[in-house]
């Protein structure tokens, strides 16, 4: 399914949506397609908002952000995220923030069909005031642990190396939490570098069967400026340049104009 059609039909204004991929396989092309289509009022869910959500927040797609680390890795701040939080530009952004372990376990609970997950953490910090965190008591030891509610996005979008013609998907390299993010969602979209006749299991390969995936779009380079292990390399220079682009509303606006002018380039 062409990416334009997939985003058009699977992502609705107001949805809770997770574009996942931890430091690898970040589905940038799909995020930028959502910007082009002017999607609105989204609850953006992602452990590391990264440039992909900085772009979507700056473009005005987001109403709410559920996350655990909002920085430009190795570079510094996400300036569009900061501008939204500090100055409500282009719109106010509601925050729900967790730790990485909390977000991971929220996805695990979602994928497992459980209402919550248990972990050690949060206790004594100020995070519970700005998260959904509860407590459970171990029925065997009496120990009190933290509980986090399941994540159940309306849509999860990920990028992967390959799909076969039946729509089974394979990704490898740093696997992140993508499997759980897909399984926890009501709907899912996978952009891939390559369509192959038959999947051959790779070292480190994670396969997600077709019947848990609603649409596959063939989008080579769909993770740039992030990367696809074995296919493309990380564009570290763009991550550094983004610091400049995103620092001012003007430079960001010019970037956004270029992006939306490029409408229809993706397939």
């Amino acid at each position, binding site marked *: 399914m062409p990416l334009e059609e997939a985003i058009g039909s699977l992502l609705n204004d107001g949805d809770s949506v997770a574009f996942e991929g*931890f*430091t*690898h396989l970040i589905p940038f092309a799909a995020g930028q397609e959502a910007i082009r289509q002017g999607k609105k009022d989204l609850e953006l869910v992602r*452990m*590391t908002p990264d440039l992909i959500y900085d772009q979507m927040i700056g473009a005005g797609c987001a109403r709410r952000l559920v*996350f*655990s*680390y*909002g*920085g430009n*890795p*190795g*570079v510094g*701040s*996400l300036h569009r*995220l*900061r501008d939204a*939080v*500090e100055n409500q530009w282009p719109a106010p952004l509601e925050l729900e*923030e*967790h*730790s*990485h*372990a909390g977000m*991971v*376990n929220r*996805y*695990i609970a979602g994928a497992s069909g459980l209402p919550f997950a248990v*972990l*050690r*953490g*949060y*206790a*004594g*910090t*100020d*995070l519970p*005031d*700005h998260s959904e965190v509860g407590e459970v008591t171990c029925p065997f030891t009496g120990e009190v642990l933290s509980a986090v509610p399941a994540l159940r996005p309306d849509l999860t979008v990920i990028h992967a190396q390959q799909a076969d013609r039946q729509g089974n998907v394979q990704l490898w*390299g*740093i*696997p*992140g*939490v993508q*499997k*759980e993010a897909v399984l926890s969602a009501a709907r899912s979209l996978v952009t891939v570098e390559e369509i192959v006749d038959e999947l051959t299991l790779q070292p*480190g390969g*994670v396969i997600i069967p077709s019947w848990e995936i609603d649409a596959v779009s063939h989008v080579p380079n769909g993770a740039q400026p992030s*990367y696809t*292990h074995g296919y493309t*390399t*990380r564009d*570290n220079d763009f*991550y550094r340049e983004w610091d400049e682009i995103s620092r001012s509303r003007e430079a960001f606006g010019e970037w956004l104009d270029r992006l939306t002018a490029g409408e229809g380039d993706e397939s």
Partner: protein
Amino acid sequence: MSFDSAELMTVVAARQLQNDQSVLVGVGRPSHAAILAKRTHAPDLVLIYESGTIDADPDSIPLSIGDPELAATSTSVVSLPDIFNYWLQPGRIDVGFLGAAQIDRHGNLNTTVIGEYDHPRVRLPGAGGAPEIARSCQEIVVTLPHSARTFVPELDFTTSLCRSDGEGSMVVVTDLGVLETSDQHDELELTATFPGIGVGEVQDQTGWELKVAGDVAEVAPPTAEELEVLRSLGSKPKAVR
């Protein structure tokens, strides 16, 4: 060889790591320090990045904790559920490296916000893996610049709690000296200063009445090997002031 305080910070942080340990590393100074340690006194040090790369041995300094270089040189690459639930949470990783915008006298850390949460002066990146690193690793090494803005009497936000359960220890390496907690005390204590830095100068940059060890050592300057290896790693961490 001459050196600056940023280099000495990295070298001192590297010295905290021992050869038989595993260390959870982030990007920036932690990566420099851990790789420096592995290339000098701790060749068997196990580097773990929270992206899931276990026993990474990068040739160059990664910009992101998910750089392909880390995945390619690792003994094993695991999922985020594995790294957080099976490796970090049960305490299988010995040392955790953290940074912060603010620290208090107990070693608690703020990486979330400066100012009020709902009306922030500066919105910082947030928690990431820090809260669980702080509670799960036996030893915590924190690096941050030493000033009254960072060493504050009260955090604007408590992101990560220093272990106060009598287990574990914390070493804080700044550009002025070294502070430590240990099993015996729940308050940071100045144990060493950088060459040319007096205790009074450290106190001036600390937002509370500083606890000072009976014998404050002077930090040994970088050896020629330490400096040479550090500089060969490239992409130097930013000076902290």
